């Protein structure tokens, strides 16, 4: 028996023509072929040419990741596919809004930790905080875990935006 190939993660940025249905095409490709989407963001990137950038965090074997890139690249409205994870150093960030409902010590502890994590308080009532935090997925995950026993009520995350370091552009 051959051992199954290990899964790795990949952050892929896709530059697409900003036309109707393009996101459905990308998502349909992933669901139709059974690929994972760990995170997905999409927004127009203002380059004056009507393009959008889709950032996808996915995981799979090396062979699957190569497939994903090739499949994305052959979609008609796709301009460029860039595997940020494999093409060099890159930065990946997401933003989260985190609502914590608590009083007393828990409330004070939540605020202390938020400060340590450089999360901003963007809304406060006597019984709640909403923290805004930007960072790597791991940092956000860690903060959310810390908030869990301290009255974590709701989380809203943007998903990952990613870009290559240095002068390299996709």
């Amino acid at each position, binding site marked *: 028996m*051959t051992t199954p190939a290990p899964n790795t993660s990949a952050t892929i940025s896709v530059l697409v*023509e900003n036309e109707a*249905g393009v996101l459905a095409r990308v998502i*349909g490709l992933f669901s139709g072929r059974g690929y994972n989407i760990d995170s997905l963001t999409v927004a127009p990137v203002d380059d004056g040419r009507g393009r959008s950038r889709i950032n996808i965090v996915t995981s799979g074997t090396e*062979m699957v990741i190569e*497939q994903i890139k*090739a499949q994305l690249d052959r979609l*008609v409205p796709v*301009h460029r596919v860039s595997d940020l994870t494999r093409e060099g150093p890159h930065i990946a960030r997401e933003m989260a809004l985190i609502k914590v409902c608590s009083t007393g010590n828990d409330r004070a502890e939540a605020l202390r930790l938020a400060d340590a994590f450089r999360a901003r308080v963007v809304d406060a009532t006597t019984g709640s905080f909403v923290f805004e935090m930007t960072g790597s997925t791991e940092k956000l995950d860690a903060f959310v875990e810390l908030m869990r026993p301290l009255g974590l009520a709701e989380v809203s995350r943007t998903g990952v935006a990613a870009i290559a370091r240095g002068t390299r552009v996709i």
Partner: protein
Amino acid sequence: MSQTLAAPAIPPAADLQSGAEVLLRALKDQGVEVIFGYPGGSVLPIYDAIFQQNAIRHILVRHEQAAVHAAEGYARSTGKVGVVLVTSGPGATNAVTGLVDALMDSIPVVCLTGQVPTHLIGNDAFQEADTTGITRPATKHNYLVKKSEDLARIVHEAFYVARSGRPGPVVIDLPKDILIGKAPYQAIPETPHRSYRPATDPDPAQIARAVAAMKAAKRPIVYFGGGVINAGAAGALTRFVRKTGFPCTGTLMGLGAYPSNDPQFLGMLGMHGTYEANLSMHGCDVMLNVGARFDDRVTGRLNAFSPGSTKIHVDIDPSSINKNVRVDIPVIGDAGVVLEALIAAWDAHPAPSDTQSVAAWWRQIAEWRGIDCLKFTQTQGRGDTIKPQYAVQRLYDITRELGRETFISTEVGQHQMWAAQYFRFDQPNHWMTSGGLGTMGYGLPAAMGVQIAHPDALVIDIAGEASILMNIQEMATLAQYRLPVKVFILNNQYMGMVRQWQELLHGGRYSESYSEALPDFVRLAEAFHGVGMRAESVDQLDDVIRAMIASPKAVIADICVDQKENCFPMIPSGAAHNEMILGAGHNQRAASITDEGLVLV
């Protein structure tokens, strides 16, 4: 609001035509001569425009699925883009099977679908369907025309996308208000497409690596698929194979890309491929795959597929590379361009090929060939049952003897495999079969499309009695346009391929695979204004074939064949190439079907 953007150059109103007229003009500029279609409310403006012109011929089919298969047959036999026109809602949903069929087999088709007017989209209006949503995974690409000024551009783009790179079906969804309203015309653009520009020229370094590997090969094999036919590269393939002296084998889709009667051709490979083709694939040390995709029907069990060989894969579609099988030397490009580059590099390469080892390899192949895996026994007594293989073989012999240009389409099942095994194709574009999707009901409409494109040729649909009923209504289309298509039914009164699997894998429990209550095909042909004939025993076969071919009309020839015949050789699902089952009369142990294999189709 003031207009700040530069307005597109819209000609004065006098120069504007209706959307439907612009559509037809764009089709004409794309060289379209024939549309296969079926009318309905949302496309009436197009039908009105068709009525008022003579450049484009409309063929009225009897079911939208058949329109797409007809367009596929047209496309495959001519190398042009096939065009389909259907109405919104049920017209579009009926076309979906055909679209997926074209997608799986990489056939260029443009399908125009009607749509409710833009202001009603999303309202569950009468005969509204989310056509772009439904057909997104069924097409290579699709468009919804929302603005009149986009119409002409989209039509041109659709043709470009359908035929470029790996070809495929493209849908254009046309709301009725766009068809009625005025629209500007735009000529075919000369600038390249914004984003879709598939590479056709291979990387020279990969060509050099490929040639180096082949020059050193001791046990080489060339394995080709439908990509060679799509690229119009059959001639280049033949020259390359002859130059190297290597053995070659083809997929179901590739048949005809290399002359089947040539001694270097080992026959089809895969599940029902020949013994020599499959064992050569298993035992080779260098494999050159041109325009094929390592489909599961071809590879059998993946982890036992051609172990230890250096694999070179030539494909226009980078996503075909390393999808199923890890390859050593990927070459991305158009099959024709790549083959020419391989020929040039082969000639330029200083090293001679290892002719001694290759000669020894040919001796091994000759031994495998000696098994004669396609042999069968046909007794010739009066009243003896016809073997289906024999029926195809006679059909081949007689058409060959008559020397008429012959096109063959098939339905899906055992008859399809027998056609692939016993009919021999010496030219590309003469064999139309549903390979990837395996669509029963493909053959008759596909033959119809072929006959439209080649009015004087002999076009035969080799059919099964179950499959033919799936698009039998097209007999009416044949009658209307006087298309003399011949339907050659290998009537075994079973869904034979299903029966075969039930015999081999499900303990002979023939659940629902008997073709109960069949129509009388002779009278059926007559009811459709055609000619019906029947051969019940071997002594009647040749006369029926000759009469069928001689008839100037559409014919259904009902060939009653052995009900229990199985299609061999066979690589059972989940087995490796060297675990092939041969037919009766070959003493060889049967490969066992594993539990893993049982879940495969």
